[in-house]
C-alpha cells in the first residue's frame, strides 16, 4: 500500500511526480511551520486530528486559493481601486495636476490583459517542449499572482515569463536560465528572475497545484472500468475534453471548483453520455446508498453532481477563448500611460523612490555601525542583550 512518504523517480515528465509531491509536501510542511499565517491555522486542524481531512481538502489549493465568484470580483475591484489610488498619488507627487487626464484600467481590463498572457504561455511551452504540467502550473501561478498584485505595477509580460520559469522548477523540469532567456526575444535573464521572489511570495509559497488535466487523465482511466465501453468513442471524447481543459485554464474555474469537477465538466461537454454514466457509477458505488427508482422526483446524487457542472460548462464555453488581440492592444496602450511611475526604470518617481530607499539603507548602515562601535567601546562586542533595537529596524526590506 503506498503511503504518503513514498518517493518515486522517473525521467518521464508527466508521470514521475510522486517524488515532487513528496518533496513539495515536505516543503509545505516546513513552510507551514515558518509562516505564521499558515501556522495559525495549524491548531484548528490539529484539534480535529481525529477526523483528518481528505487529501484535497488539506491542500493549500483548497485552503488558500478557493473562492466564490463574488469573492473573486470583490478582491479584484478592491485591489484595482487601491492600486489606482496609490498610482494617482505617485503621479501627483511627481508633478501635481497630471493625474486628472490619465484613464486608469479597471478590474475587467486588468483581467483581460492577464488572460491574454495566460494564453501566451502555451506558445512558449510548445517552443520549449515543456510538458503540460509546466504550462498548467505557470498559468495557475499567473492567475494567483494577479489576485494579490495589479497589472499596473507588474506587467504580465514579465510576470508570465517568471511564473513559467518558476513552474519549470517547481514541477521538476528545470532549464538553464540563460537558455530560457536566449530563446525569448528582447529578454535578459534579469527580466525573468528579478521578480521571482516577489512572485513566490505573492503565491504564499504554495507551489503545489492540483491540476485539471491530471484529473481528466484519471477520468479517462476510470471510464475504462465501466462495462461495455467503446474505446474509440472514449478516445475521441478524451481528446475533445482535453481541449476543453486547456480552454478552462483561461477561466476562473480552478479558483472556484475542484479539479475533478472541472475535468468531469469537460468530459460532459465532450460526451454527455459518458460523463453521466460515470457519475451514476460513482454515486451508486458501495460507499454511498444507491438512489432507489421510486423517489425519482427528488434529484439523485448523480444528477445533483451533473447539475453542479452546468456553471462550469457555461464558464468554459463563454470565457474559454483567448481575448481579441485588438481589444487588448487598446488596453495595453492605455496601460503604458497609467503604469505605476515608481516601477518604471528611469522615471522621476522611480529615481526618487530609489534615492529614498538608498537613503534609508545608508541610514540603517550608519546606525548599525555606530551601534557596533559603541558596543566595542563599551567593551561588550556582542551587544548588551537581545534587545529591541536590534530587531526593530528590520522592517524595511522592501520587496519592490
Amino acid at each position, binding site marked *: 500500500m503506498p503511503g504518503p512518504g*513514498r518517493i518515486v523517480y522517473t525521467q518521464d515528465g508527466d508521470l514521475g511526480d510522486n517524488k515532487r509531491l513528496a518533496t513539495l509536501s515536505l516543503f509545505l510542511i516546513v513552510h507551514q511551520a515558518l509562516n505564521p499565517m499558515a501556522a495559525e491555522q495549524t491548531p484548528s486542524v490539529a484539534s480535529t486530528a481525529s477526523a483528518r481531512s481528505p487529501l484535497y481538502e488539506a491542500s493549500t489549493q483548497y485552503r488558500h486559493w478557493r473562492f466564490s465568484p463574488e469573492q473573486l470580483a470583490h478582491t479584484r475591484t478592491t485591489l484595482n481601486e487601491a492600486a489606482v489610488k496609490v498610482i494617482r498619488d505617485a503621479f501627483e507627487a511627481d508633478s501635481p495636476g497630471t493625474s486628472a487626464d490619465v484613464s486608469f484600467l479597471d478590474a475587467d481590463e486588468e483581467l483581460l490583459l492577464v488572460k491574454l498572457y495566460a494564453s501566451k504561455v502555451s506558445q512558449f511551452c510548445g517552443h520549449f517542449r515543456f510538458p503540460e504540467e509546466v504550462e498548467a502550473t505557470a498559468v495557475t501561478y499567473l492567475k494567483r499572482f494577479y489576485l494579490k498584485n495589479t497589472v499596473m505595477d507588474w506587467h504580465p509580460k514579465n510576470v508570465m515569463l517568471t511564473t513559467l520559469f518558476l513552474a519549470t522548477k517547481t514541477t521538476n523540469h528545470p532549464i538553464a536560465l540563460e537558455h530560457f532567456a536566449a530563446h525569448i526575444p528582447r529578454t535578459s535573464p534579469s527580466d525573468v528572475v528579478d521578480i521571482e521572489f516577489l512572485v513566490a511570495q505573492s503565491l504564499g509559497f504554495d507551489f503545489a497545484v492540483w491540476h485539471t488535466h491530471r484529473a481528466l487523465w484519471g477520468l479517462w482511466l476510470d471510464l475504462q472500468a465501466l462495462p461495455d465501453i467503446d474505446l474509440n468513442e472514449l478516445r475521441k471524447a478524451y481528446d475533445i475534453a482535453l481541449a476543453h481543459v486547456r480552454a478552462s485554464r483561461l477561466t476562473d474555474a480552478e479558483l472556484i471548483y475542484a479539479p475533478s469537477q472541472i475535468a468531469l465538466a469537460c468530459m460532459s461537454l465532450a460526451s454527455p453520455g459518458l460523463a453521466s454514466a460515470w457519475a451514476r457509477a460513482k454515486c451508486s458505488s458501495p460507499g454511498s446508498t444507491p438512489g432507489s427508482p421510486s423517489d425519482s422526483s427528488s434529484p439523485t446524487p448523480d444528477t445533483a453532481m451533473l447539475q453542479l457542472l452546468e456553471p462550469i460548462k457555461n464558464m468554459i464555453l463563454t470565457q474559454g477563448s483567448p481575448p481579441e488581440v485588438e481589444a487588448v492592444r487598446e488596453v495595453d496602450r492605455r496601460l503604458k500611460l497609467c503604469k505605476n511611475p515608481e516601477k518604471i526604470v528611469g522615471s522621476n518617481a522611480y529615481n526618487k523612490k530609489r534615492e529614498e530607499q538608498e537613503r534609508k539603507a545608508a541610514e540603517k548602515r550608519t546606525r548599525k555601525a555606530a551601534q557596533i562601535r559603541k558596543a566595542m567601546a563599551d567593551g561588550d562586542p556582542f551587544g548588551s542583550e537581545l534587545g529591541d533595537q536590534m530587531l526593530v529596524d528590520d522592517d524595511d526590506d522592501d520587496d519592490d
Partner: protein
Amino acid sequence: MTSRGWLRGTTVRKGGASSSSNTTRNSTPQIQSTSTTVFGGGVKDPSGRTSEYFSMDDQCPVCKSDRYLNPKLRLLVSACYHKMCESCIDRLFTLGPAPCPICNKTLRKLAFTPQTFEDLDVEKEVAVRRRIAKDFNKRQEDFADNRAYNDYLEEVEDIAFNLINGIDIPQTEARIAQYKIENAAIIEDNLRKEEQYAQYLKEHEEAERLEREQRAEELRKLEEAERLEREQGRQELIDKLETSDKDVKKLIARSRAEAAKRVAARTSSSLQRNTPGFLRSRPTRSTAIPDVPHVPIQDDWYAYEDKFTLRKDYDDPVSEAVRRDREGIMRAGGYTIEEAWERALRFAVAGLDLQPLQGLQSQISPADQDAAMASA
C-alpha cells in the same frame, strides 16, 4: 596545628595568629570563627557561627600596621566596605560618628562587621542580596503564569545589580520602597509562610529525632529480652538434658526450632513501621497555555480509497512510452506506473461533491488580507 586548624575550618582560634608568627608567612587564607563580639553581622554558616576571613598579608589601610607588627591585628569592614583595624576603629569612632578616612562617609562604631569573604565585593553582594530577599520574597505560585514570574525575577535582579554596583541608588531605593508599599500584604504573608515552614521543618525534625530515639530504646529492650530468653532456653535445655533420658540430638533440634520461631515473630512485628514522607505541598495555580503538539501530516491519504478501484491494466497512450521501456531507461528506481495511475484516479474523484463557495462572507482568504501588498 595551624594547617590542620584551617582544614577543619571550624576551630575557634580567637586572635590566634600568635603561634603562626613563627611559621612561614604564607598568603593562605585562614578561616576563623569568632564568638559574637561587639561587632555583629557578617555571614553565618549553617551552624550559626561566623567564619571570619583572615590572612597573613593583612594590613590596615589606615594606620598601615600589619600582622608582622601586630599579630593580633583584626580587620573589620565598614558600611561603605572599607577595611580598618580594631585599634583604628576605637581611635576614630569612640567619640561618636565620624567620617570614613577613605571615602568620607559618616560611620558609626557599631556598623562595622567582621569580614567573611576575601573579596569585599562578594561581601557586599551577599549583604545586598540578603537585604533584598527579605522584601522580595514572592514565590512562583504568587504569579499567574511563568512569564510574570520571570519578569519579577528580572526586576529583582535589576535592583540587586543596581545596589551592588551603585547605579541610580536613589531611584532604586525608591523602587524598593514603592514595591514594599504595594506588596506589603504579600510580603507579610510570605514571611509568615516562611516562618511557618521553618517551624514545621523544625517540628518535623524534632519528631523524627524522638522517634529514632524511641526506636533505639525499643531495639535495646528487645535485645535484652532476647538475651534473657536465650539464657532461659539454654538453662531449660541443660535441665532437660540432665533430667530426661531422651535423645540428645532431638532435644537440641527442638529447642533450636523454637528459638528460630521466636526470632521470626519478633522481626516481622518490629519491621512494620511506616515512615511518613513529608513533601512541601503547595497549591499551584497555573494558567499556562497548553502546547499543542505539532502534527506534520494532517491529511488523510486513504480518504478516497472507496471511490475507485485500481485495475491491473489500462489502455493508456499517455504512459505507453514508459510502460514499453523494459530496461527502465526512463524510470528511476521505485517508479511504478500503478502509482501514477492511482494518483490520477485520486485526482479524478477528489472533491467531486464539494459545493462551490457562495457569497462574500464565507471565507476571508489571505488574498484579501494583503491585497494591497504590492501597491504599497
